[in-house]
């Protein structure tokens, strides 16, 4: 025990000595918690549209007015022909083109039917779908409103089957603001970055400078050395998590609806797992560059595949299995559940055992792979 205390003393001194890294560790949470939620807004608010009016009739003018009044669209250009309109899409000025064919009004009145061309820039699938969806709504509205001969309420229609009205309510987040989704996840990101990166670098550094040899020849046991490395970062990690929670509350007014104790219980176990992961990386690399690259490689995967940005459920089957094999995925899910939905231990116990499993497996593997004799 005494040995461990000395190692801890050494580790803390080393951490506090490097002021720039220390500052970075504590600044990062604040910066990330402030920037990320501000930046992440996936709403499609207005779609830029370029309209080709080949008809120039009163109907086509009405339609254009209707589109601009709908609030969904911003008309960037009234183009003369398709070639001019496609330029707007190619220059990223417009996301969608509406082509009103010649004799639009005449055909509509004579034949009662008219086709319209909609061209959407589908590289960004969401925007294309939402944009053309909005346009469909406006068009349907337009065609019903145009016909003056149709009485406002159809007696016939009411009898034959009427309208189904969707009444929607969104629980836990009535305004469907994105910050409620992002902020809890940023907390996870913080722990992951601190835990994973810092430990990965720390041991490799000793390898690179050669001081690990000195420790190896002392009677310090394997577990003492590793615990000595883990505990300081564990304490710092928990500190940062607490700071993060406070920032959440004071900046965004988001606080855990569920049990704070449960949240901390998860954070404790998760941090141990991710520290073990950092350790594992460091036992497999020879120098800091390798460790950093490996850590970065996994961090990028953790961030992009854990459900942080895009939902895990939407991924293909194999990717979901892959995502579930990462501790981050479970923790992101749980943090959101506890903070937003007040889930109880009963709801998340499976995740808890997963995380314990990860913690044991990763640390065990790291200790097994760390050899005192090089």
């Amino acid at each position, binding site marked *: 025990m005494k040995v461990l205390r000395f190692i801890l003393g050494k580790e803390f001194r080393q951490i506090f000595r490097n002021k720039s890294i220390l500052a970075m560790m504590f600044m990062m949470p604040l910066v990330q918690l402030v920037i990320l939620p501000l930046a992440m807004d996936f709403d499609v608010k207005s779609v830029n549209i370029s309209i080709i009016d080949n008809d120039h009739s009163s109907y086509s003018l009405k339609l254009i007015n209707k589109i601009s009044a709908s609030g969904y669209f911003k008309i960037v250009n009234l183009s003369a022909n398709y070639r001019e309109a496609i330029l707007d899409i190619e220059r990223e000025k417009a996301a969608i083109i509406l082509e009103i064919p010649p004799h639009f009004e005449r055909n509509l009145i004579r034949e009662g039917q008219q086709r319209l061309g909609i061209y959407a820039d589908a590289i960004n699938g969401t925007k294309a779908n939402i944009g053309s969806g909005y346009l469909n709504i406006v068009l349907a509205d337009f065609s019903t409103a145009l016909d003056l001969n149709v009485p406002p309420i159809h007696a016939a229609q009411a009898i034959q089957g009427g309208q189904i009205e969707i009444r929607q309510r969104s629980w836990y*987040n009535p305004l469907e603001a994105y910050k409620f989704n992002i902020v809890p996840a940023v907390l996870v990101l913080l722990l992951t970055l601190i835990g994973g990166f810092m430990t990965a670098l720390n041991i490799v550094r000793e390898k690179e400078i050669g001081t690990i040899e000195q420790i190896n020849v002392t009677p310090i046991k394997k577990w003492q050395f590793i615990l000595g490395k883990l505990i300081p970062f564990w304490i710092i990690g928990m500190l940062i998590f607490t700071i993060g929670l406070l920032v959440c509350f004071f900046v965004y007014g988001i606080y855990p609806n569920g049990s704070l104790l449960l949240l901390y219980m998860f954070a404790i176990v998760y941090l141990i797992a991710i520290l073990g992961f950092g350790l594992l990386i460091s036992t497999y690399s020879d120098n800091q560059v390798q460790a950093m690259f490996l850590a970065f490689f996994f961090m990028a995967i953790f961030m992009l595949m854990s459900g942080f940005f895009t939902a895990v459920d939407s991924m293909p089957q194999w990717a979901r299995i892959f995502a579930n094999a990462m501790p981050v995925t479970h923790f992101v899910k749980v943090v959101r559940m506890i903070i937003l939905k007040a889930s109880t231990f009963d709801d998340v116990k499976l995740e808890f055992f997963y995380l314990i499993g990860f913690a044991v497996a990763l640390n065990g593997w790291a200790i097994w792979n760390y050899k005192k004799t090089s």
Partner: protein
Amino acid sequence: MKQLLVFIRKEFYHVFRDQRTLLIMFGLPIVQLVLFGFALSSEVKNIRLVVADYAKDVNSEKLIDKIATSTYLIVERATVTQEQIEKEFKKGEVKGALIIPANFSSDLMHIGKAPVQVITDGSDPNIAKTIVNYLTTIITDFQEQFAPTASTLYPLHIQPEIRMLYNEEGNGSLNFIPGVMALILMIVCTALTSVSIVKEKEMGTMEVLLVSPFKPVFVLIAKAVPYLILSLVNFTLILLLTVFVLDIQIQGNILLLYFESTLFIITCLSLGLLISNVTNSQQTALLISLMGMMLPTLIFTGFLMPLENMPKAFQLISYVIPSRWYYLIVKSVMLKGLGFSFVWKETLVLMCMSTGLLTIALKNFKVRL
């Protein structure tokens, strides 16, 4: 000139000696591109929806059947109360609930209006919104089928024909490919160059290089050249992967794409040189170039989050992020098949950035340690 070649050769030896780093440099982009290319998608799929049918009549059955055929929603039938829904939401598997009230059909027939209730789990707004969107589309469609007279009642019928440009098959990950390319190149190039220089500083060999008759500026150039070449090889590998594994065709001129990528790589290398100037330890250099750059690149490139929704200040920041411009270029050239006349502005920005960064880096390069 001959001296420079000798030094470049020395740098290549350094690179090839460290095989693990080399493996990481090439393995990392491959794995990430394939992983993200297949897994990331802007589409929301496989959403579990509980349908509570209190009506249990022909119409509600028909409606539920119609919803169940949707490939995006996984429908579970259960007569649940509000408390049970809340319980399900807290477990986190079910994302939404559709409740069809008992007098659904009679309301529909007699009053002409029948409400259905949709409750969504708002903790993920994206999914919540998508559920409502999907259901609205399905229900609108259902109504039309249900009352086929509607189209005859409205004699004026406008039928839109929608064409999805550049992406006929609706590949949801298309948007991410250029973004991931920019991310990988940016991080790998910047980190490797900055580290290779700082390493010489840390080991003390920089001193040896500086006292040699070799011009100090050439030290930097000799450092950058191998990484430029390796990055281009890396880029080729990425392109081959996108074409043959991800099955995305390159629409535009491949030479133009190479030219733009070279420019982007040079910009990143310059940034790496600049970072190496201001740092003295590998650890700090890596922290800045990997950790410090990962988030800005992810956020401000514009492939994950729409830039136009961000606050004005953020949009201004995004202008100084090189990967943002490269992303636009790759999107235009690779996916849309556009020529140089469409990307000259972005190219100019990248050129200014690279010359600017390079000048600052070379000017700040300390000849004395």
